[in-house]
């Protein structure tokens, strides 16, 4: 039996097609219920119990549930709880959910797949008795609702066949649509709203907390605080005629009442200010913006503004602080207001509960960890328990009459301050995939006792006899590079050997897909989230000392001045003589009595590396700096004990130079062989505007820097030295780093040759080849190179520019988030470190704001605001200085500050900076008597085992922190 489905579609070329599909109807579909006497079930096909227990107080008799689409879409968190069982999911619902939200669809499938949950998916669209044809004039949604009701009444009558009255389960339809409920009631179907049902469920406390508070946001015009959003059609028409613009909303990190939106085709981003200007947009949303007339334009306020700690209720406060802006200013930027939301980009947010002041209240505020997200109003009865926990909350809606968006509790991550919970927060907030590797992925791994098979040995160049060694940070277990050097007939032979990860990670395997999705290994202070399973990352791929390993080698012949005479690439087998730390290698070089093979080759490498580096710097490569610190972690509790700045020895730069050389050599090779699809890395030159504030501050210190090219910039940075302030130059370099743009991966087919340039390294072409264990980009580069030298087969996806670009987008996204996660982890550990301490440290001013100084503590690499009371200080906008009587604060000034952790509010731990010197009465912190001070514990020096490796390139890559 069949029927046809007809619909019209619009093609890209602007034509209308009538599409007719055959639709088959069957009479042999089973109902899945054990109470059914009719369908010829086999035992394993019975999903629904014969006597489902009724949980809900509203329905005494046992029953099955049928959910409508919106219930699934909005209440997936409730559905995922174990409470609801014996639920029928109709195909109509399943398809609508799939169409509207794939993430929720996946979660629903998981629930259906769970045998214990007894969810039955019924193919009502293909059952001859439950298929309904769309009527003329009927909306698609109405048809689907009708199909759901039809299936519900079919089930009710189907189960009654040959059953004694009252002994078979009823059907209860859960829907929040009032019209649908009325129609269902008229047709004799039992119905109920979700919230009524869930609130009457017995035995599952906390279930109702997960109810989504989904209100149609524009419907509440009563007591409206915000202007209504335009409808999608109005937005569409507005954008088409140019009155409105589409952009992505970015909230400010410092000021919750400010944000901006980037609009394509518009150079400057549009400023959005105040509750009304932002009009319920949340960071990341795609919004429709109306640009205000030029006389209403304003400029970004430079104050740091945080939302009040108290719950102000539903009203919007005066925004006077924002409005005190001198209009006649040259910094005025285009200003606009949000008039509609095109697409919400909501995800689940981590944070903490801010319990209501009234005991027993159920409405509470939730403060997200991410500062750019506004607080969320949630309802829960477990506020006492949740107040001390990190929780995950989903946003539901933001009605016009609510100051805050409405959301609901999803799950608890653990107690506040607990390391695991805090790490989980960091990983979730930065979208780092950190679930354990699936069975399918683990199945791709070789056995634990894998050894190199004979045929593999025959295929490769045997370098086991060569004196290869690796140099890495202490405690590194994923060693992906090793080196060797020796005299050759003409000059020197130098080899870089990179772990051959692609031998194990075959294209399109589950392992490959997982690695591509993760894109990079993420290093937290006390945790490493691997890109490939540990067996590979720390064992089979890791080039450990004394073990035979597969490698991809890049061998050069260099002359006396380290000029490359020839390059060759091949797969090889190596046996590393020693896996050394930087310090050990340095010692081997320095100890003149040592004359073994390792020491001589290290000295040779070191000598050549220095020449390479000099040549690179002469070409204009920038030596930038970022405050990097490493924690000493207690090996048992994993609590940080102390921090210190990283020590740099010669051998660091020795390894780095050869990695750079290898990367450049490989980049040249693959770009030549794959002009359309080589994966490369570029670093665009920063636009001159980025330097403005930096140059102003530098010139006030008496240095005129030339930023026209990287060469001149590098030169003038070298010259900007104040002998009595040794840190000044580093500070300049730190600030210069923040003016840089992010280096990105790209596919050679998507850019022109000139755009390949790497600004920071001053080389015309660059890629990543040397760390395939922890970066997926390197894996792809390995495959490209293997294809190019004939060591491995190529596959179609390697040559597809579009696929390559899509891959690069994901890599860039993951890398940025991995960096941010690492930074957040450092911040977290700093907080833990300062839990019981206070320190007085010297600091420098990085920036002057309207009500605060942004200061940096060089010792810890910590950065934070030092608030200045406005009654004592006056802010001079012109000069960008803060003045109090005769004391003037400007950028680069040195101060002494006291550092403490403000734990008075457990929810909101933050580092507090207080001014110590220069002394200003009433502002500066007065040292208390010695007795009050805590004794600083003697800290054991321990090596931190899981510290991230020194990336050869990172220093040049550290991005300026994304400011507003």
């Amino acid at each position, binding site marked *: 039996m069949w029927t046809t489905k*007809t619909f*019209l579609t*619009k093609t890209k070329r602007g034509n*209308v097609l*009538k599409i*007719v599909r055959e639709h088959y109807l069957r009479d042999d579909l089973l109902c899945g219920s054990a109470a059914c006497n009719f369908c010829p079930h086999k035992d394993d096909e019975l999903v629904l119990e014969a006597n489902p227990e009724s949980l809900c107080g509203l329905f005494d008799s046992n029953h099955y549930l049928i959910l409508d689409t919106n219930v699934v879409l909005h209440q997936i968190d409730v559905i995922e709880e174990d409470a609801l069982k014996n639920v029928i999911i109709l195909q109509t619902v399943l398809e609508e959910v799939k169409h509207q939200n794939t993430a929720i669809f996946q979660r629903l499938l998981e629930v259906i797949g769970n045998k214990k949950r007894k969810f039955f998916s019924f193919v009502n669209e293909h059952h001859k008795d439950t298929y309904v044809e769309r009527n*003329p*004039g009927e909306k698609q949604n109405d048809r689907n609702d009708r199909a759901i009701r039809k299936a519900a009444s079919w089930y009710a009558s189907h189960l009654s066949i040959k059953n004694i009255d009252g002994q078979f389960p009823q059907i209860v339809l859960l829907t929040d649509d009032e019209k649908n409920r009325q129609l269902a009631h008229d047709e004799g179907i039992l119905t109920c709203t979700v919230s009524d049902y869930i609130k009457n469920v017995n035995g599952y406390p906390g279930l109702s907390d997960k109810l989504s508070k989904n209100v149609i946001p524009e419907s509440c015009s009563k007591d409206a605080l915000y202007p209504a959003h335009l409808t999608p059609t109005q937005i569409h028409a507005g954008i088409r005629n140019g009155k409105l613009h589409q952009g992505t909303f970015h909230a400010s990190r410092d000021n919750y009442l400010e944000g901006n939106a980037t609009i394509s085709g518009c150079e400057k981003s549009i400023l959005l200010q105040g509750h009304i200007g932002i009009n319920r947009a949340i960071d990341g949303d795609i919004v429709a913006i109306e640009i205000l007339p030029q006389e209403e334009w304003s400029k970004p306020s430079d104050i740091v503004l945080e939302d009040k700690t108290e719950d102000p209720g539903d009203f919007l406060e005066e925004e006077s602080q924002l409005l005190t802006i001198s209009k006649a200013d040259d910094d005025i930027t285009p200003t606009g207001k949000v008039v509609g939301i095109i697409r919400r980009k909501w995800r689940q947010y981590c944070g903490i509960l801010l319990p209501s002041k009234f005991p027993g209240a159920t409405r509470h505020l939730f403060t997200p960890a991410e500062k750019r997200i506004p607080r969320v109003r949630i309802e829960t009865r477990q506020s006492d328990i949740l107040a001390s926990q990190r929780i995950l909350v989903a946003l539901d809606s933001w009605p016009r009459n609510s100051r805050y968006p409405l959301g609901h509790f999803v799950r608890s991550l653990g107690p506040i301050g607990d390391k695991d919970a805090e790490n989980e927060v960091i990983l979730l907030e930065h979208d780092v995939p950190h679930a354990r590797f699936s069975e399918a992925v683990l199945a791709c791994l070789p056995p634990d006792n894998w050894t190199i098979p004979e045929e593999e040995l025959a295929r490769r160049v045997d370098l086991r006899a060569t004196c290869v060694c690796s140099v890495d940070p202490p405690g590194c277990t994923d060693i992906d590079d090793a080196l060797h050097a020796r005299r050759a007939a003409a000059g020197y032979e130098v080899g870089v050997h990179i772990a051959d990860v692609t031998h194990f990670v075959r294209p399109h395997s589950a392992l490959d897909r997982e690695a591509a999705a993760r894109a990079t290994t993420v290093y937290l202070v006390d945790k490493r989230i691997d890109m490939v399973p540990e067996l590979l990352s720390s064992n089979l791929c890791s080039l450990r000392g004394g073990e035979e390993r597969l490698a991809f080698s890049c061998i050069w012949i260099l002359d006396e001045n380290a000029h490359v005479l020839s390059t060759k690439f091949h797969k090889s087998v190596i046996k590393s003589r020693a896996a050394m730390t930087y310090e050990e290698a340095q010692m081997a070089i320095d100890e003149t009595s040592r004359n073994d093979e390792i020491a001589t080759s290290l000295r040779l490498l070191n000598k050549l590396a220095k020449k390479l580096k000099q040549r690179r710097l002469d070409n204009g490569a920038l030596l930038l700096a970022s405050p990097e610190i490493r924690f000493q972690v207690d090996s048992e509790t994993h609590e940080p004990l102390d921090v210190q700045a990283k020590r740099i020895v010669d051998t660091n730069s020795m390894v780095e130079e050869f990695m750079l050389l290898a990367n450049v050599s490989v980049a040249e090779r693959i770009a030549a062989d794959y002009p359309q699809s080589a994966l490369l890395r570029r670093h665009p030159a920063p636009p001159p505007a980025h330097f403005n504030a930096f140059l102003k501050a530098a010139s006030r210190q008496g240095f005129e820097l030339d930023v026209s090219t990287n060469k001149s910039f590098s030169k003038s940075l070298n010259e900007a030295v104040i002998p009595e302030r040794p840190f000044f130059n580093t500070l300049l370099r730190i600030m210069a780093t923040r003016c840089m743009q992010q280096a990105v991966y790209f596919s050679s087919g998507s850019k022109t040759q000139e755009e390949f340039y790497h600004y920071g390294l001053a080389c015309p072409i660059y890629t990543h080849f040397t760390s395939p264990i922890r970066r997926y980009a390197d894996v792809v580069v390995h495959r490209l190179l293997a294809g190019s030298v004939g060591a491995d087969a190529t596959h179609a996806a390697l040559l597809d520019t579009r696929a390559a670009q899509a891959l690069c987008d994901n890599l860039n996204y993951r890398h940025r988030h991995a960096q941010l996660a690492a930074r957040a982890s450092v911040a977290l550990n700093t907080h833990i470190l300062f839990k019981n301490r206070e320190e007085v440290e010297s600091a420098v001013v990085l920036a002057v704001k309207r009500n605060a100084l942004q200061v940096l503590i060089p010792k810890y690499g910590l950065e934070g605001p030092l608030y200045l009371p406005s009654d004592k200080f006056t802010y001079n906008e012109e000069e960008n200085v803060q003045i109090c009587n005769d004391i003037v604060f400007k950028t680069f000034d040195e101060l002494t500050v006291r550092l403490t952790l403000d734990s008075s509010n457990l929810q909101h731990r933050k580092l507090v900076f207080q001014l110590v010197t220069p002394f200003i009465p009433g502002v500066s912190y007065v040292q208390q008597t010695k007795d009050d001070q805590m004794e600083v514990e003697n800290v054991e020096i321990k090596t931190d085992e899981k510290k991230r490796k020194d990336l050869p390139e990172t220093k040049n890559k550290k991005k300026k922190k994304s400011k507003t």
Partner: protein
Amino acid sequence: MAGLLLSSTEKMYILHGVQDDYRSDGRSNIDYRPMELETDVVSHASGSARLRLANTDILVGVKTEIDEPKPNNPGLGKIEFFVDCSANATPEFEGRGGEQLANMISNLMQRAYHSSQAFDLKQLCILEGKQCWKLYVDILILECGGNLCDAVSLAVKAALFNTRIPFVKAALMDGGSVDFQLSDDPYDCKLLEVGNAPLLVTLCKIGNKCVVDPSAEEESCSVISLIVGITGNPKYYSKESKASLNFECKCSTIGMNGPGSVAPETFKAAITQGIIAAKCLDEALGRTLLRERQECGSYKKNSYGFLK
């Protein structure tokens, strides 16, 4: 029709019958044989009809496409006819055999529909000067049993009557490009006004008189046939019969077929006869189509017989 052998006596018998307005199968000179008509037979097309007249079997499908109007007629849509003579119909159509006949019929249809009084192309306009609908009328001859032109024109008119054009809202964007919105409801369509659409009537000259819808035997008695295109009367095609009573049918095309010649008087008489025949035919067709539409409502119809 070749291959049909008639003796001179038989020919004489037919000729005499025509002179007396009483044909060998009992019809008068302006009578058609019974026909079988079904619409909406091809679900993929926007409109379709299948007509069977004696042994002639025609399937017509109408497809719609969006196109740019011609610069000299910015407010008009387009219509095109394609005839495909299937080799199933008769062995003569094999290879390129049917091409000439196909061209002849499609040109004739094109001419007959060319006039604004025959078919109003304004109703196919979406946005003047920018976008219009183009109708592709695909005519498939499944079986050839004589009187092709009449059957084709009837089937085409029925298919156009059955055609549903999706409602689109078009708007002019910057830079002259057009953007349009399409309703997601497949029932959200408009119907064409086809009341005026012409019907072709083939008049077969036998002796001094002409007959319509000749049988194969009658055709072999004739040396020339006239094909006239006569516009229809919209009142038969809509329920509210508000059309003026003194509606006059117009002749939109005339064609001739065969080696013979026609005297002016016979010619005039033939056209008058054609108009009368077309009127009856048009009325019958309109009534039938209306009845079919009413019976099925606008629900998806259950198809009978054909392709089932």
